[in-house]
């Protein structure tokens, strides 16, 4: 016979009282574990949701960047080509070229060495992107009985120190001819037709649409053929520099650079549209960047809204837990205390005789607190088990974000699980303390005299 056996026998005798104590403790443990599991689940879910959204956003932004980059490139290309029709940027002419003649006749007459083009291409100049050497002359196309401008040009001369750029103008192959709008309209020419010009045979490779400029009465052939036809071997009338980065006062700098490389030349800004073209290209880039920035802002706003929504949910749950857990623990303690008091009151006679046969006060305390400890352990374990089952199923459903293992792996949760039975034991013993004191202090003689 020992006190533990006595406690066990008493518990078996008063099952309902003990079961209610266990359930009260279990409810408190359940609230504690459940609330903690829900809060941790919320936190993990938030991290996962936001990470997933961030990934989706990054992918979306990457896609948008690709789309914007492509669209920007297309827009830039389209802009560049559209602006090309408006004219060239820089015209490099021999120093002796009379500009009045150029403007009155539309074609220059002074020449300069064709090797100037190569010299310029090999130079470290950075403000010019495309070089087009040309010869041009107003001629009588005797075979067609029509006055036209014969324009000899070659493919763009690559600038040696720069990356290869996409050519703005396609070169005219030897033996081929490109015809301006008025000419092919008047002569009813079409692509593939063969024509003779100043005794040489050409096949028409392209017909230009109407440009409303001197181009409409121009025919283009390759530079070498034109030089031969016009008796200008190794000479050119002009070098056309395209896409000069010549906004603002940069034209002055370009002139200085070219004068240092090609002495005896003059540089004119051929058309004011050059600035417009550069601005347009910059604008196209800006529009693309703004579109991308707008997409990024929308994505960031979405993320911020999601984050705020999750934060609000977490705050609600935390507030609920802050109120519920202490309340449930207090309620459980109160109930356990009342049940313990009821138990002690029912056992007055028993306690009286135990004191009469010599049990010490500490032994009586042990009988009551041992019982409370058992209810704490059992209640803690039952509450823990139910809490874990609920925690496992809290996120059950089609869109499971947080598994039980996630919660279990969160920092400190295992320690909380281990500590819960200790907490519930302490809770039950503290709640039963008054009842145990009541049992110890009762008047044995008075009980036994009844």
């Amino acid at each position: 016979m020992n006190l533990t056996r006595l406690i066990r026998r008493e518990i078996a005798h008063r099952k309902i009282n003990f079961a209610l104590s266990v359930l009260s403790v279990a409810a408190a443990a359940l609230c504690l574990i459940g609330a903690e599991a829900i809060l941790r689940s919320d936190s993990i879910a938030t991290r996962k949701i936001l990470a997933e959204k961030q990934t989706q956003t990054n992918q979306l932004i990457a896609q948008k960047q690709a789309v914007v980059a492509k669209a920007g490139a297309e827009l830039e290309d389209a802009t560049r080509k559209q602006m090309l029709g408006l004219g060239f940027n820089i015209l490099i002419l021999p120093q002796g070229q009379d500009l009045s003649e150029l403007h009155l006749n539309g074609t220059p007459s002074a020449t300069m060495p064709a090797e100037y083009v190569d010299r310029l291409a090999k130079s470290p100049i950075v403000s010019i992107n495309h070089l087009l050497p040309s010869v041009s002359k107003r001629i009588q196309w005797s075979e067609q009985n029509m006055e036209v401008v014969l324009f000899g040009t070659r493919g763009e001369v690559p600038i040696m120190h720069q990356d290869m750029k996409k050519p703005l103008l396609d070169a005219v192959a030897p033996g081929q001819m490109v015809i301006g709008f008025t000419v092919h309209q008047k002569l009813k020419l079409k692509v593939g037709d063969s024509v003779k010009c100043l005794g040489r045979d050409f096949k028409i490779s392209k017909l230009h649409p109407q440009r409303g400029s001197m181009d409409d009465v121009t025919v283009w052939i390759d530079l070498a053929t034109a030089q031969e036809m016009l008796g200008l071997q190794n000479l050119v009338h002009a070098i056309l520099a395209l896409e000069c980065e010549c906004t603002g006062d940069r034209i002055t700098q370009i002139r200085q650079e070219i004068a240092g490389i090609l002495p005896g030349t003059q540089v004119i800004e051929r058309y004011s549209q050059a600035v417009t073209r550069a601005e347009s290209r910059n604008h196209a880039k800006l529009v693309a960047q703004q579109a991308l920035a707008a997409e990024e802002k929308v994505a960031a706003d979405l993320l911020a809204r999601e984050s705020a929504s999750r934060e609000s949910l977490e705050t609600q749950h935390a507030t609920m837990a802050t109120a519920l857990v202490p309340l449930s623990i207090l309620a459980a303690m109160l109930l356990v205390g009342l049940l313990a008091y009821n138990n002690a009151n029912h056992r007055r006679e028993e306690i009286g005789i135990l004191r009469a046969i010599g049990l010490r006060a500490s032994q009586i305390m042990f009988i009551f607190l041992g019982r409370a400890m058992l209810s704490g352990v059992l209640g803690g374990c039952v509450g823990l088990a139910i809490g874990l089952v609920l925690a496992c199923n809290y996120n059950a459903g089609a869109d499971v974000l947080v598994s039980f293992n996630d919660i279990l792996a969160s920092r400190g949760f295992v320690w909380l699980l281990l500590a819960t039975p200790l907490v519930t034991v302490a809770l039950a013993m503290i709640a039963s303390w008054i009842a145990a004191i009541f049992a110890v202090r009762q008047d044995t003689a008075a009980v036994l005299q009844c």
Partner: protein
Amino acid sequence: MLLELVDVWKSFASPSGKSARSVEALRGVNLNLAPNDFVAVHGPSGCGKSTLLLTAGAMLRPDRGQVIIGAAKPYELSPDACATLRAENVGFVFQQFHLVPYLSVLDNILAPSLATKLSSAHQRASALISQFGLESRRDHVPAKLSSGERQRCALARALLNQPKLLMADEPTGNLDSENAQIVLESLAQFASSGGAVLLVTHDERASRYAKRNFTMQAGELAEK
């Protein structure tokens, strides 16, 4: 002496609480119990018999006077030392039996060993079960026992720690004559084996077994 009561006085407040007068349950009681003594105290209800028993048994502190158990003065000891003194020296039997309801006969008889850590408690309990004819009831709880069996169980419990003193408060009050006789014979046997018995009772049959008989009237004890 196993028990000495020297000029013991004990009073209680009026039960109604309204009267300033107190009820004097013991008035200058003197009593000695030596080994082999069997003292029976007779008297009407409310005369102070139970108060005498509880005071002598170190459970109810007197207002005045001395109670000495062996050589010890229990009311001058600490509560735990007093409990130990009681466990080692005094056995109690009550009219209401006061068995622990959820313990079997065996466990009830073994209960005093909780206080003394008697090494041979189990063997002694078995011997007492046999002595009191409770073998077939060994594992039964008190609710399954007859009154006689309950009182025999209570008596066996009182004897487990081999006390020097046995104090019995109306032990035959709820028993038929056959069981009453068994109980009284057991008390007499305990006295004859070297112990001392203090019995308070209405039962006149007890006079035949007691060596000394006293009457109690209004808190005063007088030998017959």
